């Protein structure tokens, strides 16, 4: 068992090195003065020059703002639809078409994005044609189509999170509420939702990240003038490294790291408080 443990522990360490060296190198070279990014210009570095350039970069900033808006809207939409789907699959008994729903909600988890992107674009084109023929309305792809597309494939993740949370949820709480006279809808909103709120929130964050980060599907369904941040980044890095992108990456890594550490600290504190209360209850 000892040698076994040593091997896997070494691999764990190597794995973490593998995971973090690229990120750390990106952060490191964002302070490098040289435009070549990885050639360290010791004369003029470290510098915050690229961060200043980033704040001046209108294209990046407006794309970031667009991405945030789209991500927030699609995360909210995904949470509503995904929670409903998760509820249906976890709580409702068998009904006609259940298997299809189950399939539709898990397929996006693995579906290659080019397929999803292409199919959504063709749908929007067909809808455009239909609307034009029926109502003479001209419809351009843009923020709305991107949001709809993002909702459609991120809701699968929310469904999985909510469904698995509900599966391990003690449904005697819901039964107790029903027994006390609450209608099923009331039970859902007053009892179930507050108790699975952490799962719903993490589903929201997950959907936000996936939408914020998405490139391929967005490229297919976006219209002229609606450039999201990933699209801007991609077009820049195709041509090679770009120090402004390093600066942007560092800021994002910082935000994420703060968020994760903050949530870990909060959870630890809540856990400690709960343990203390349980101990007091058992003693007294």
């Amino acid at each position, binding site marked *: 068992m000892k040698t076994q443990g040593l091997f896997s522990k070494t691999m764990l360490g190597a794995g973490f090195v593998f995971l973090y060296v690229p990120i750390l190198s990106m952060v490191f070279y964002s302070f490098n003065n040289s435009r070549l990014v990885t050639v360290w210009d010791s004369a003029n570095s470290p510098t915050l020059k690229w961060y200043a350039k980033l704040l001046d970069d209108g294209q990046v900033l407006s794309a970031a703002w667009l991405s945030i808006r789209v991500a927030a809207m699609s995360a909210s939409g995904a949470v509503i639809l995904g929670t409903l789907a998760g509820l249906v699959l976890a709580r409702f008994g068998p009904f006609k078409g259940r298997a299809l729903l189950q399939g539709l909600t898990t397929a996006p988890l693995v579906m290659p994005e080019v397929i999803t992107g292409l199919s959504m674009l063709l749908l929007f084109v067909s809808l455009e044609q239909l609307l034009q023929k029926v109502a003479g309305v001209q419809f351009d792809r843009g923020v709305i189509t991107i949001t709809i597309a993002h909702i459609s494939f991120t809701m699968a993740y929310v469904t999985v999170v909510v469904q698995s949370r509900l599966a391990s949820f003690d449904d005697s709480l819901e039964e107790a509420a029903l027994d006390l006279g609450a209608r099923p809808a009331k039970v859902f909103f007053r009892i179930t939702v507050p108790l699975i709120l952490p799962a719903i929130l993490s589903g929201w964050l997950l959907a936000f990240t996936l939408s914020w980060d998405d490139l391929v599907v967005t490229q297919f369904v976006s219209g002229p003038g609606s450039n999201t941040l990933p699209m801007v980044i991609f077009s820049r890095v195709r041509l090679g490294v770009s120090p402004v*992108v390093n600066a942007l990456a560092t800021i994002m890594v910082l935000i994420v790291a703060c968020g994760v550490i903050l949530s870990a600290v909060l959870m630890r504190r809540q856990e400690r408080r709960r343990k203390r209360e349980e101990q007091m209850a058992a003693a007294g």
Partner: protein
Amino acid sequence: MKITAARYSREAPGRLGPLWTFLFRYGPPRWTEYVLRNWSGQRLVIAVPYLWLLLFFLVPFLIVLKISFAEFEPLGRPPYAPVFQWLDEGALQIKLLVGSYVYLLNEPLYVSSWIYSIKVAFFSTVLCLMLGYPMAYAIARSSPTYRNVFLMLIILPFWTSFLLRVYAWIGLLKTDGVINNVLKFFGIIDEPLSMMNTSFAVYIGIVYSYLPFMILPLYSNLEKHDLTLLEAANDLGAGPVKAFLRVTLPLSFPGVVAGSLLVFIPAVGEYVIPSLLGRSDQLMIARLLSDEFFLNRDWPKASAVAIAMLLLLVVPIMLFQHFQNKELQAQKK
């Protein structure tokens, strides 16, 4: 508020005649009543996500299928001839061309791309498994306090942008990049290694990006193992290696399958990583689809590629869903 449909079911002759009748026989009050009676409660809850998914996920695939059989019209807007067309005589003309599919299966560019894509995805999955399994094992066997920290460290990169993480490897792998700098610094090499725009770079990119997807299902499976089984095996004379091979490995099989599928299936259709890190002389299939669509504007062919990819992946996808369901059922108990 009770809706009495009786008031509206009388024939109300008026200036609009049949239209009036139609509106009041089947008009809003009747509809509302129908909706309220048949679609209340559970059905409504099921219907909302269901309809959304049908419209925005299933129907698009059907449209792609339809267009894959269409005839390419380079100058058309959209660039394909209609598949279904109502002719003047009232008949429906359906034109299905399989030319696109034939092309896909014969054109050397595509054939080599199919093979290359599957090869890359397969070996990436194997490499990911070889790195991810020991990591998941180590995390599952560590003490609870460390476990949460490790999991957080695994998930943290996932929350940062996928695109940016792939970009990071450009900085590492290119000729004047970090790795070459370090190797030159230590005198290990004289000439820089050419690592960018190779299959090697794609393997690294895929393993790097998809590692959390391999580790998490494996961890979730390994964590549930009953360690007393291993103790029993030891007691019966099996050394640590044998116990691992005979007890842990078979029990972790569902996790291995789930993780591998979570990596393999999207890797086949991966676009970003080969675009940024991969070869320009041998493209993966997603790139071909994108080029067909955006460069050649050949929608039918692009659709055919998509359908062919779906057919290729449908068995692994169903396998994945099967394992996903089993996991959920197990959680219910």
